[in-house]
C-alpha cells in the first residue's frame, strides 16, 4: 500500500498524456482498495527487515489501529484530490504525479515503526508539497515556500538530533520502535530535552502556537483549486507523531510537560478561532480553522487521558475529510467567481448545490452532533476536563467561536446580496458532486456510527497509554 502511489507517480511520467488521468485515478483507487482489504483483515502485521544493519536502522512498517485509520483517510482524500485535479487543472500530469508521490510519503509516515524511517518519510512528504507550491503557487509563493520549509526543517533537524540521542543514550540496538520502547531513557532532564527537540518538529507540523506562522501563507499562496491544500491538511502528522513516538518514548517527560503543553494547545485553539473570525479570504480562514482544530487534537493528545486521546485521533482522521473537501469547495467557488474572498455574496441563488454541500461540510467542521467532528471534539473535551477542567472550558469556548466565524463567512459569501454586475455562477457539474458529497457522506457515516473507527483505534490507544503505566 505504501509504494503503490509512488510507483504510480513514476508510471505517470511514461504514460501517454491522454491516459494520465485514468492511470492516476486507477492507482489511487487501488491504494484505497488495499486499505479496505487491510481493514477487513484487521491491519497488517509488523514487517521488519534490516535496512542499514551497521547503523541499526530497520525498515519496519505496520498498518493497524490508528495508523491504518489515518492511512485510509489519506488514501481516500488523495483519491478525491486526483478526481478533482484531473478535471480542474489543465494538463494535470505533474500535479497528479505529485499527489501520488505525496500519498506515499504520508502513508509511509503512518506506517513507519522505525524512527529513522519515520524521519525519512516525514521529509519525503515535504518535497512534493514544496513542488506543488513552487509549480502551481501564486505570486508571493517564494516567501511562503521559504517560510514553510524553514519552519519544517528547523523542527525536523532538531528531531534528527533527538533521534540520534534517544538511541545512543538509551542504549537501544536499533531504531525500531519496539527496541526503543524496551530501552526508554530514565526520567530526567535528558529525556525532557530530547522530548522538547522531538516536540519542536511535531509542533511545527501540528501546528502549535508559536510555530504556526507558516500555515496561513502556505495555504494562501497555493493553487486556487485547493488541491495542494488538501494534501497540506493531510500533512498534519504532528498529532500522530506525538501520539505514537512522543508519548511512548518520552513517558516521564510528557507527564512532566503536560500542563504547559495542554495550555499551549488550548491557547492555540482559541487564538486561531479568534483570528479566523477576521479573515477576508476563504483559504486563510480555513487555514486558521484547521489550526484551531489541531489545537484541539493537541489538547487531546497531551492530556494523556484515554478518552481524550481517542477523540484526538478521531478528530485527526476525520478533520481531514471535511476540511479537505472545504478547500476543494473553495477551489470550485474560485473557479466560478474568480476570487476566494469571503465577501462575494449571493452565490446561493445560482449555485444551490455548492452552497448546500459547503454548508453541510461546515457544520461537520464546527462539530454539529451527528457528524464526525462532534465525536472527536466531544471526547477530547470530556477527557481533558478530567485532567484540567479550566483548560477544557477555555478550549470549549472555541466551538462557539467556530460556529461564529464559519457561519458569518458562509453568510457573506452565499447569502448576502449579489454585487451588481456579478457574473452568472454555474452549479456543480459531473464529478464535482462526487468530490464534495463523498467526504460528506463519510463524515455523516462516522458521525452516526462511530463503532468501526473506534474499534480500530481503541486498542492502539490503550496500548500506547499502558506504556505510561496507567493514568
Amino acid at each position, binding site marked *: 500500500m505504501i509504494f503503490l502511489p509512488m510507483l504510480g507517480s513514476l508510471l505517470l511520467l511514461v504514460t501517454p498524456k491522454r491516459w494520465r488521468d485514468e492511470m492516476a485515478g486507477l492507482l489511487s483507487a487501488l491504494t484505497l482498495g488495499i486499505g479496505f482489504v487491510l481493514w477487513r483483515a484487521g491491519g497488517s502485521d509488523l514487517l521488519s527487515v534490516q535496512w542499514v544493519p*551497521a547503523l541499526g536502522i530497520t525498515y519496519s512498517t505496520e498498518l493497524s489501529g490508528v495508523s491504518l485509520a489515518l492511512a485510509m483517510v489519506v488514501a481516500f482524500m488523495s483519491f478525491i484530490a486526483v478526481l478533482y485535479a484531473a478535471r480542474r487543472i489543465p494538463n494535470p500530469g505533474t500535479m497528479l504525479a505529485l499527489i501520488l508521490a505525496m500519498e506515499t510519503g504520508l502513508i509511509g509516515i503512518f506506517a513507519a515503526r522505525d524512527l529513522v524511517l519515520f524521519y525519512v518519510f516525514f521529509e519525503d512528504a515535504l*518535497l512534493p508539497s514544496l513542488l506543488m507550491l*513552487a509549480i502551481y*503557487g501564486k505570486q508571493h509563493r517564494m516567501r511562503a*515556500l521559504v517560510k514553510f520549509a*524553514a519552519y519544517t*526543517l528547523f523542527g525536523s533537524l532538531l528531531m534528527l*538530533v533527538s533521534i*540520534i540521542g534517544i538511541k545512543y543514550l538509551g542504549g537501544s540496538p536499533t531504531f525500531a520502535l519496539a527496541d526503543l520502547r524496551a530501552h526508554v531513557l530514565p526520567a530526567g532532564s535528558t529525556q525532557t530535552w530530547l522530548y522538547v527537540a522531538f516536540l519542536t518538529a511535531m509542533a511545527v507540523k501540528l501546528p502549535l502556537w508559536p510555530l504556526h506562522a507558516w500555515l496561513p501563507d502556505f495555504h494562501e499562496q497555493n493553487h486556487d483549486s485547493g488541491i495542494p491544500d488538501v494534501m497540506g491538511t493531510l500533512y498534519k502528522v504532528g498529532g500522530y507523531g506525538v501520539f505514537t513516538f512522543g508519548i511512548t518514548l518520552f513517558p516521564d517527560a510528557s507527564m512532566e510537560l503536560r500542563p504547559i503543553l495542554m495550555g499551549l494547545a488550548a491557547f492555540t485553539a482559541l487564538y486561531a478561532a479568534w483570528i479566523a473570525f477576521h479573515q477576508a479570504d476563504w483559504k486563510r480562514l480555513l487555514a486558521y480553522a484547521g489550526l484551531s482544530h489541531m489545537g484541539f487534537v493537541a489538547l487531546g493528545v497531551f492530556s494523556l487521558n484515554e478518552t481524550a486521546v481517542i477523540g484526538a485521533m478521531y478528530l485527526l482522521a476525520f478533520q481531514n475529510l471535511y476540511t479537505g473537501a472545504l478547500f476543494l469547495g473553495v477551489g470550485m467557488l474560485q473557479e466560478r467567481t474568480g476570487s476566494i474572498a469571503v465577501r462575494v455574496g449571493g452565490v446561493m441563488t445560482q449555485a444551490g448545490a455548492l452552497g448546500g454541500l459547503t454548508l453541510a461540510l461546515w457544520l461537520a467542521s464546527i462539530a454539529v452532533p451527528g457528524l464526525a467532528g462532534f465525536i472527536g471534539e466531544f471526547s477530547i473535551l470530556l477527557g481533558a476536563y478530567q485532567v484540567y477542567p479550566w483548560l477544557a472550558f477555555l478550549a470549549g469556548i472555541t466551538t462557539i467561536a467556530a460556529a461564529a466565524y464559519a457561519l458569518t463567512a458562509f453568510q457573506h459569501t452565499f447569502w448576502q446580496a449579489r454585487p451588481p454586475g456579478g457574473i452568472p455562477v454555474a452549479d456543480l457539474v459531473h464529478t464535482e458532486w462526487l468530490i464534495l458529497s463523498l467526504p460528506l457522506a463519510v463524515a455523516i457515516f462516522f458521525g452516526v456510527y462511530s463503532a468501526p473507527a473506534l474499534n480500530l483505534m481503541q486498542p492502539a490507544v490503550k496500548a500506547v497509554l499502558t506504556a505510561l503505566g496507567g493514568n
Partner: protein
Amino acid sequence: MLTTPTGTDLYALGALFPIFAVLFGALLSTLLGFWVSRRVLTYLNIGMLVLSGASMIALWNQGRAAFTQTRVLDGQSLTTASLHADNPALLLGLVIVVGSLMTLLVSLDTAWRARISFPEFDAMLMYAVTGALLMAFSGDLIVLLIGLEIMSLSGYVLSTLQDSRRAEESGLKYFLLGAVGSAILIYGIAFVYGATGTLNYAEIALRVGSVSGLLPQNTGILVGGALLVLAGFAFKIALVPFHQWTPDVYSGAPTSVSLFLSTVVKVAAFAGMLRVFSGALADAPGWASVLQILTAATLIIGNTAALLQRNFKRMLAYSAVAHTGFLAMALLGTPATGGAALTYYLLVYTLMTAAALAIVAALQRTEAGMEITDMRGLYYRHPGYAVALAICLASLAGLPPFAGFFGKYLAFQAAFQNGYVWLSVLAALTSVAALIYYLRPGMLMFMPDRTPTREYAHGQRPPTTLTVAIGVAGVTVLGLLPNLWYGWVSNPAIWQLLAGR
C-alpha cells in the same frame, strides 16, 4: 636508532599500482600532447583512471604496503611503511577516482568553451590526481606532504590555465594562500618531528599513545605541531577562518576546474586529515577542541554567507565551505564512526557536487556561472537537467531519500556520540539556512516563466549527461540503499589501521 631498510620487493609494488596508473596517464598526456588531439588524451586518461580504480578493488583486503622498514623501538621491532594500500586508502582512493572521472567527462564538453582545451589540462589534472592518491595512501608525513604539494601545484596551474583576468586573479589568490598554508603545514610537521622524533604515522601514534614515549617537555611542541598541521590542512579544506580564497577561486576558475577543486582536492585533503588526526595524532591533546571551534565557525559563516549569494556558482562555492563544516564534524568522532562517516559523506558529496557543477558548466553562458534568478523556469527548458539539479540540491540539503541525508546523519551521529552534543545541535540549526539557499534555486527552476531562454543553447551533451546521470543515480541509490557503500566502510576494524599499525 637502528634502521634496517628491508627494500621494496615486487609484491609491494602492487600497492603502488593505482598511483602508477594515474601517473602514467599524466606522463603520457605530457608527451603525447604534441602529436595527439586532446580528446584522445582525455579518453586515454579516463581509461587510466578506470584501471586505477579496478586495481584498487583488486587490492581490497590485501593490506599491501610499500617502502617498508623494520625498526627496533623500545625493545620491540616495529614494521612501518611509507605507503599503505590498506582498506581506508582504497576506499578514499576510489572516491578520488570517481571525482576525477566526473571531471574528465565534463571537461570533454566544456573545456573547449572555457578555452582550456589543451593537453596540459589533462596532464595537470592527472598529476593532481597522483598527488591526491599519494595523500590517501600516505604512511608518513613526508609522503603526505609530497602528495599535497604535487596536488596543490597542479591545482594552481589548473585554475590559472584559462586566459582570463578572473582566472588569473583566482589562480594567484589560490597560489599565495595555498603557499602560506603549505608553509604552515611544513612548520607543523617539523614540530611534530621535533616532539616525537619520527615522521611515520605508526611511530608517531605509538609515541603519542604511550605516556612513557611522550616526554613531558615535548608535549607543548606536539600540541603546537598538531595545531599548525591543523591550520595547514584548514587552508586546503577551507575551514573558517582559512576559507577566504574558496569562493573567489571556485567562482573565478573555469567551472570544470572548480568541480575538480571542490571535490577531488577536498577529498584528498580530508583523506590526509583522517590519516593524521584520526590515525597518527588521534591521542594527541588539544587539536580536537580547536577543530571543534573551527567547525562551529565554518558551519555558521559558510551557511550564512551562502544565504546571501546571488550567483549560483558562488553559492555552490560557499556551500562547499559549509559542507566542509559537516565533513569536519565526522573527524571529531571516534576513528571507527568518524572514518566511516567521513568516507561515506565524501563519496556522496563528490557525486552531488560534481553533478550540480556539471550542470552549471553545461548551461552557463560565461564562466562566471549563472545568477540564481536565471534559473527560473529551467524545468520547462531543460527538464532532465532541472530534475537532476533539483535532486542534487535536495541531496546537498540533506533531504531523504537522497544520500546527502545519510551523510549528514552519519556526521551528526559521529560527533554526537563522541560527546559533541552542542555542535550537533548547532549543525542542525545551520542546516536550516542551508536548506533555504538550496531551496531557492531548486524551486525557482519549477516556476513557470515565459521569457526567452538564458542558458547556453547547446550545453546539453552526452558526456555531461552521463556525468549527471552517474551523480544522480549515485545519490539516489546510495540514499535508498546506503548499505551498498556504507557496508564496506562501516567495518570498524579497518579504521584501526589508519596509522598503519
